[in-house]
């Protein structure tokens, strides 16, 4: 999927939330949801839910997450 900065920011925020240490998770969760709200409001789609937006982004986020994990694995193998 072609990307735009807003989409990238949402994926980064979700990844940060999911991978945060436990004491940071509430804060990261709120930051991620703020971005979802902003995106929907900016598009004039306030009636759509966060869940619906996440559903639409499901496959693209899996691609993003896969790429991130492969990058991290490559970094780790260079260190070892």
């Amino acid at each position: 999927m072609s990307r735009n900065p807003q989409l990238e920011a949402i994926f980064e925020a979700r990844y940060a939330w999911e991978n945060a240490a436990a004491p940071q998770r509430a804060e990261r969760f709120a930051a991620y949801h703020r971005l979802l709200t902003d995106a929907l409001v900016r598009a004039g789609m306030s009636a759509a839910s966060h869940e619906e937006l996440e559903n639409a982004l499901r496959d693209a986020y899996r691609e993003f997450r896969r790429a991130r994990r492969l990058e991290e694995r490559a970094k780790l193998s260079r260190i070892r």
Partner: protein
Amino acid sequence: MAEVLEPPHWQAVGLVIDQNQRDFLASRYSLPEDFLAWFKAADLFRETQDERMILREPTPDDLRQHRTWVASLIAEGERLITESIARGGLPDGAARFKLADVQATLEILYLAQREWHGAKMSEARRREILKAVFNVEEPAA
């Protein structure tokens, strides 16, 4: 010889969850310690999900195991929150995390459950949302 790290398996996830449940029921540890054990089980679950379902194509057995353990972790997290509320919350200074952090971890699990086992959106609706919100268009499949 290169070090080969064996990826985590669902069996390990299940064993940790089962042990945590036994410890909780036996009141073997304090509530903050039960929460910490749950956080670690959730992290192991997510790591296994990545290894077996993100970095490769999930098999039917992966999906079955995932469905089982995500439901179990959600139930356990909710139970710990209920127990904590019944005791008047976490004691001050007893933990570095707050109940809101537990709730935010539960949301990760609920999202994983919806995304892997919930209803899939129609292709037309998906395209409509992506176009409206991000101005992203994909070629028709």
